């Protein structure tokens, strides 16, 4: 799903004000009256306490030297030692670079392509064609990354994959795209485009359908051609949506997607493939450095949190006051 604008209060604000409060009952009376509701609430509350807030408590091992048989509570505190180790590790710069490069490739290539595809679809007046193309390009969104990676393995398979043969014959080379580090990023971007571009158009198409049709008629009378109409009416009409979606994408930019990267990582391309999420897995789960990898994950979460809150506030401002 796309990144939501976090605004849980919106639904409540729309509702009429609650009836004037009666004399406030004491909590035991209130509780007894609503015991069935509280009982229904219980499993969910237990779930959040254990599986959502439990791990948040477990994050404390980022400041400890976690020893499995001592547990989270028994392991000794080491303060910011894990963070110092991480920031002084050469891996830190490499991870940050890899993560940011992938994020900017995504913002610079996949994001504009989504808008272009939406604009092209919007220009189609033959509704059967429009619906057919939409139906086809939405499909990959629902497939797992395992399937996307498997399809890539087959299409680029050394010496027999269709795309391996095609691209190499065009370039006159013999490149193994799956192991060559130089081709890791293009492959990831290509997968992203194939999987998500079509689905991403939904938001833009919804915005496009709200652009005032009268403006087009006025522009036609004034003699504006196709491209001028798109440039002067359509694009300004969806500008706030574009800005909000861009801002939200920036808020998510550290989330490079564990599954996709992990599945495409191999022994030969680790230097460019490692990002924060997969590094946490390799160092934490496969090498057992629990405290260190938790510190790495916490660092990424905190930066992500700042990005999300910052961009969410920005998005709301653009959305409501319409600065543009």
């Amino acid at each position, binding site marked *: 799903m796309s990144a939501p604008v976090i605004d849980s209060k919106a639904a409540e604000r729309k509702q009429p004000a609650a009836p004037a409060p009666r004399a406030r009952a004491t909590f035991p009376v209130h509780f007894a009256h609503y015991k069935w509701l509280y009982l229904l609430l219980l499993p969910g509350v237990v779930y959040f306490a254990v599986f959502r807030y439990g791990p948040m408590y477990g994050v404390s091992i980022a400041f400890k030297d976690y020893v499995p048989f001592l547990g989270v509570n028994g392991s000794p505190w080491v303060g910011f030692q894990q963070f110092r180790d991480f920031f002084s590790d050469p891996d830190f710069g490499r991870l940050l670079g890899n993560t940011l490069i992938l994020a900017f490739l995504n913002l610079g290539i996949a994001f504009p392509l989504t808008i272009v595809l939406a604009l092209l*679809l919007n220009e189609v007046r033959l509704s059967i*064609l429009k619906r057919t193309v939409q139906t086809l390009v939405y499909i990959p969104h629902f497939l797992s990354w395992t*399937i996307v990676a498997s399809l890539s393995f087959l299409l680029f*398979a050394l010496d027999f994959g269709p795309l391996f043969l095609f691209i190499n014959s065009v370039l006159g080379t013999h490149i193994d795209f*799956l192991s060559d580090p130089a081709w890791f990023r293009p492959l990831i971007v290509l997968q992203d485009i194939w999987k998500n571009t079509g689905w991403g158009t939904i938001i833009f198409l919804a915005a496009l359908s709200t652009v005032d049709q009268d403006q*087009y008629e006025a522009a036609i009378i004034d003699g504006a051609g196709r491209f001028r109409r798109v440039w002067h009416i359509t694009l300004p009409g969806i500008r706030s949506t574009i800005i909000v979606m861009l801002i939200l994408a920036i808020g998510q930019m550290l989330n490079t997607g564990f599954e996709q990267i992990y599945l495409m990582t*191999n022994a030969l391309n680790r230097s460019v493939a490692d990002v924060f999420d997969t590094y946490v897995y390799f160092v934490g789960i496969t090498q057992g450095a629990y405290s260190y990898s938790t510190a790495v994950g916490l660092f990424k979460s905190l930066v992500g949190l700042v990005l*999300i809150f910052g961009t969410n506030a920005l998005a709301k401002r653009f959305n409501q006051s319409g600065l543009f």
Partner: protein
Amino acid sequence: MKIHNTTGGKVFDAANYLFLTLVGIITLLPFIYVFAGSFANEAEITRRAFFVWPEQFTLGSYEYIFSTPAFIKALVTTVVVTVVGTVVQLILTVTMAYPLAKRNLRGRRLILSLVVFAMVFSGGMIPTFLLVKDLGLLNSYWALILPAAINPFSLIIIKNFFQELPAELEESAKMDGATEVGILWRILLPLSKPVLATFALFYAVGIWNDFMSPLLYLSDNSKWTLQMYLRQVTASSDLLGTGNVDPNYIPPEQGIKFAVIVVATLPILIFYPFLQKHFAKGMLIGSVKG
């Protein structure tokens, strides 16, 4: 609206239609290739660079995988985990959403803010892994279901949906002597069927496609799900070097890979017409607030 179309406009339309048709076909080509390849023999797959129709039609790959116990087990496991997981997620989400939709319930505001906080911050991979380990759930199928049993985002949407149902429905039921649980069961749930069906699809696709949870929590390869099996089958072993693959594993013939991909994709394609309709709507509910 009738718009006079200029010559330039017609040329643009033609080019645009052609381009979009190509985009649609290119999106589909990998499936067609894999589908065709799953019915071809090994020699044809290695000899022909690309094809959309096998010269010699054979069911050999399917016969092979459906006589492989590991594959059958992975398939059955995945179906069972998907069904049970979807039911668990629906029940937990609905039972929590209903009380939270009552605006006079005390403690509700606190719980809601804790839920929203859990939406934006999580303990992360390692603390969650250690928790699952401490609970003794490693190599248990519950590890694929419980850690993500309630999606805070869908909880809030279902809560809002309950809130927006007319209050008169509940009031009249209460006057007829219905209990809170009775109201939920007999009045709200029947009204929410379309919404709940959408979320059921959403959850089922998520569990079916999940690769990270089995990777983290199921180290015993006899318990693997279809996605794990698929990865082992399709990744060429010399390239892996990233752990969690059986070292004694011998990679299969190419045709087998094609057939496994088809089987893993098929359920999604069968449900796709429903998915497209409901998900597109759901995405707009979540993202564009009118």
